[in-house]
């Protein structure tokens, strides 16, 4: 019941919001996938996905397991470069420039598109402090004043500062699961990405930590654009402004979250959201 009332609350808010900003021309486009396909060998992981990602909005990717939402997400920061038999076709425009164009350095791209994974991934041998600044320190920024500032700012951003400010030198692995996940978020934020990609960031966390991460997402969208993959439809409804529904490697529907969860355009979306399949 609580879940339901929350959804309708979010929906109401969003409906009023979208009514104000409905014409997408008011929104600036941060990222855009154009006919993006990922192939594993000769089979498609996802096929011909074209969706816009609006600046400082939260876009949720939903769909049943194996539908390709994570595959799509990983294509957005060229994570598939490392997968042996994966090939990416189509294009992804970040601020209007194709990240798959020749001569584009994936390392540069990944600094602009941070990523948070399903399981928290603190670097095992590093302290909380070193974890946060790993992306800066390991590329040669050594000024302690700058680093101190970045650590505090990022941890505050990730709503972890108050809990760890007195033990920044303790290992990142000593934190609880939820804290580790927020540490991973802080680490991603430290390099000031334009976009934060979150791959089921709460699926290994308890409900309380999940709530904290969701609150965090609400705060973060003031400064960054967020794309979140989630299995949890209530979560998508709670945190996102736009939702893309994936099914069998294809995009079924892309819509504002409020519309998708109330009057979806596509019958299959409705069936999925009402639990008829998936």
């Amino acid at each position: 019941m609580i879940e339901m009332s929350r959804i309708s609350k979010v929906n109401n808010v969003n409906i009023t919001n979208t009514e104000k900003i409905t014409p997408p021309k008011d929104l600036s486009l941060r990222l855009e996938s154009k006919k993006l396909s990922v192939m594993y060998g000769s089979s498609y992981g996802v096929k011909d996905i074209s969706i816009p990602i609006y600046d400082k909005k939260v876009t949720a990717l939903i769909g049943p397991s194996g539908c390709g939402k994570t595959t799509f997400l990983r294509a957005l920061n060229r994570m598939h470069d490392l997968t042996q038999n994966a090939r990416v076709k189509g294009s992804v425009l970040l601020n209007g420039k194709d990240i798959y164009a020749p001569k584009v350095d994936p390392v540069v791209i990944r600094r602009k598109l941070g990523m948070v994974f399903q399981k928290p991934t603190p670097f095992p041998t590093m302290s909380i402090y070193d974890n946060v600044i790993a992306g800066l320190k390991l590329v040669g920024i050594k000024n302690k004043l700058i680093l101190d500032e970045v650590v505090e700012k990022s941890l505050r951003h990730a709503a972890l500062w108050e809990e760890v400010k007195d033990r920044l030198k303790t290992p990142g692995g000593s934190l609880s699961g939820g804290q580790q996940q927020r540490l991973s978020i802080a680490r991603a934020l430290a390099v000031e990405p334009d976009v934060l990609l979150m791959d089921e960031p709460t699926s290994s966390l308890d409900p309380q930590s999940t709530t904290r991460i969701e609150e965090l997402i609400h705060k973060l969208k003031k400064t960054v654009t967020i794309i979140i993959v989630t299995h949890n439809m209530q979560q998508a409804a709670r945190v996102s402004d736009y939702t893309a529904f994936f099914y069998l490697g294809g995009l079924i529907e892309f819509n504002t979250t409020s519309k998708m969860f109330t009057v979806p355009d596509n019958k299959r979306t409705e069936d999925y959201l009402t639990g008829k399949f998936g």
Partner: protein
Amino acid sequence: MKTLKRRYLHEKIMITFIAFNTVAVLTPLIIILVYVFVQGIGAINLDFFTQELGSPSRAMTGRPTGLVHTIIGTLVVDALAILIALPFGIGAGVMLSEYPDHKLNPVMRVMNDTLNGMPAVLKGLLAWALVVKPMGGFSGLSGGVALAVVMLPIIARSTESALMNIPWSIREAGLAIGLPRWRVIASVVIPASKAGLVTGVLIAFARAVGEAAPLLFTSFGNNYKSSYLLGWTFGPVDTLPQRLYSLAISPYPEWHQLGWAAGIVLLFFVIVSFAIARIVVREKY
């Protein structure tokens, strides 16, 4: 459906079985340690660590004799070996684990396993052909090269498996904050697998330290200390396993006892290096 009582009985039988096996494995080790110790301890004295071996008559007439040149030689040859083997071995291991899609890897894996299975004496022959022949004489350096070839495949394999133990997601997390691949390996993956890496290197080291065969026609052996400093690397040098062998097959009882003592020192050497390495990598976190 088995009764609870029966399952407990099974549990007890299994534990007894495992305990028995553990003891059975450890017993030979303890027998060796005790036997070597009892046989050799009589020859361990100050002279053993300060005097050279010299000719057999020295020992037979009761003049001071020892293996100081052998101990120094072992340190020199093993240090050279590890210096040579470490970069190549770790490098090969990193390549196998971190760049699994590289074209050379399948070939390298087969060659590495072949090298690992090759008799040690052939590695001595290789070092003889590569170093002794061109340089025109037996040398500590050639012994180091031979032992390095013994260590190399073990280090490569153990490095590979130590790095593979680190979850792939950790690497992706590193890449996702915009670190280049080599940076992720050097600053995230390798530190995280430090304990495994050191253990692997130690196993390789311990294995090579005990090898006599590859040294027979490389470092060759020597009854005396080198007369000049560089002689330890560029002249023939004595090493513990090889000296142990030649003392054991000699006809002099005094030398037999020295051989046992050499065994004690060799064991001690291996144990101490294990202990030091363990302390060095003690988990901070």
